């Protein structure tokens, strides 16, 4: 992806963040048509054919380096894990204190350590093709089958609304197409998920808009804009590139049952730290 492309996406984020989603629609077809749309595989309904096995080769950390501030400016980060540079998530002071405290003292609170579903956008985290995911798509649905912890996201494209009184680890996803970009609106989170192993977190007010833009038959640009007014002062956006796995690859079913045994091995003071009802 060239610098011009990055700049264009940065502009698109700015547009998303400063305008209504409807206003952003007008930008998308023009944007995606820069990607030689005639080269993309397509289904009978004309949409890009996203089907196949994909992985995030750049990794989540790299994606977070591309974290865009609420003003649409790219924030250049070092390796925050080794350098200890705090992420520029736009926390409120109190939520920042909680993140810092948990990162230091309560890493075992990480829901993924207890085999829970990772939520969105964390599911895309899977490092360097270790955990790919398969997309199956028809005119009514996109379904994403993740190797990691046999997570599944079913994304209806029927114009239906999010449910009421429904709270889930992965939220509720509804999709639509803006030109050649699959846009997935995700709400209805349960307030329990973390964004990464550094205790960055979201709560039940999280709202994600994901954009899957096929840039070649073997690459998809993934962008997620996350807003959560009770955790963050303003929305932020991350992006990364998804690459198609070699044709011989397949999902090796993954299961996670470490949870309750894991807890037993924690220091007593951590006890049932996993239990959100404690």
């Amino acid at each position, binding site marked *: 992806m060239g610098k011009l492309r990055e700049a264009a996406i940065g502009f698109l984020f700015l547009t998303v963040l400063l305008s209504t989603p409807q206003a952003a629609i007008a930008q998308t077809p023009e944007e995606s048509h820069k990607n030689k749309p005639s080269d993309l595989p397509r*289904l*009978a309904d004309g949409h890009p054919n996203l089907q196949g096995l994909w992985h995030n080769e750049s990794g989540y950390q790299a994606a977070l380096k591309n974290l865009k501030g609420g003003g649409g400016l790219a924030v250049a980060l070092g390796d925050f894990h080794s350098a200890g540079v705090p992420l520029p998530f736009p926390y409120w002071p109190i939520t920042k204190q909680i993140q810092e405290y948990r990162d230091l003292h309560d890493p075992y609170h990480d829901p993924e350590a207890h085999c829970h579903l990772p939520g969105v956008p964390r599911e895309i985290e899977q490092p360097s093709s270790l955990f790919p995911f398969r997309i199956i798509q028809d005119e009514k649905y996109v379904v994403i089958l993740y190797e990691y912890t*046999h997570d599944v996201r079913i994304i209806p494209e029927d114009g239906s609304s999010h449910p009421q009184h429904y709270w*889930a680890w992965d939220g509720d996803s509804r999709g639509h197409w803006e030109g050649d970009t699959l846009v997935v609106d995700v709400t209805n989170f349960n307030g329990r998920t973390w964004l990464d192993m550094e205790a960055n977190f979201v709560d039940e007010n999280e709202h994600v808009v994901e954009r899957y833009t096929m840039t070649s038959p073997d690459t998809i640009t993934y962008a997620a804009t996350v807003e959560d007014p*009770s955790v963050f002062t303003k929305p932020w956006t991350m992006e990364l590139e998804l690459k198609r796995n070699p044709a011989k690859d397949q999902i090796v079913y993954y299961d996670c*049952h470490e*949870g309750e045994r894991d*807890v037993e091995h924690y220091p007593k003071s951590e006890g049932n730290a996993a239990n959100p009802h404690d």
Partner: protein
Amino acid sequence: MILATALTIAACPGPQNTGARVNDPATGSYSPPRLSDGAPDFRGIWQAQGTAYLNIEGHPAEVGVRASPSVVIDPADGKIPYRPDARRKQTQNYQSRLTTDPAINCFQAGVPRAILLPAPFQIFQSAGNLAIVYTDNHSYRIVLSPSIPHDDGIDFFMGDSRGHWEADALVIDVTDLGDQTWLDAAGNFHSDQLHVVERYTLLGPNTMKYEATMTDPKIYMRPWTLRVLLFRDRRSSARIVEDECIDGPDGVWHHISPFDPKAVLHHDYPAELASERNHP
């Protein structure tokens, strides 16, 4: 790539029948609607009825369990043809089922148990692709082409599935199931040698016949077959909802409905921070 296109086309009359919902006057059999590649269209949300999930074999009424005949169609006596020592093990499983059923630990159900459960599953299908997504424990199976070898030597809770078409029936060959799952809640079980052949046959727009033949020479005297009917959830609002287990304070895992207000954790951040600092 998945269900090989050559196979789907070879086995089917052709794409001209797309959308057809007629009974074949010659055979009286149902001719299902088809995808663009000619494959019968199995898409939708389906669910078994009955109590086979509690006990595949015939069983009397108990507290919370309706009496039911066996869903085993072969052998004709409706009994799973266990080897004698395996039947004794099944009896032990039954007696200890409230504490030893693998499902209690939120393990994935396995095959064919996942199909029998009183929870819907959804079939996703496109030309050359088929996946089954179960409500229970967000399990799924991707049905690959037989041209891709089984991952022999690696066991999975939901096995390793290879599909092909026999006329309009979807036939799935399942291996690598391991020995960590039961077949139902009555302790009917298998070893890591289990080999399941499933046959899915559409009987009408909203009804499907499901048959599974189990072969496991370590446990059964001979292969045996069960049959249940699956019914389509016709509501336009029907959805597979997230089903996740939560580890409770007593170390016991339990499913929590995303429609349960307890599913959501509301936050009081100042109180949480104070609480965490008081209990480092």
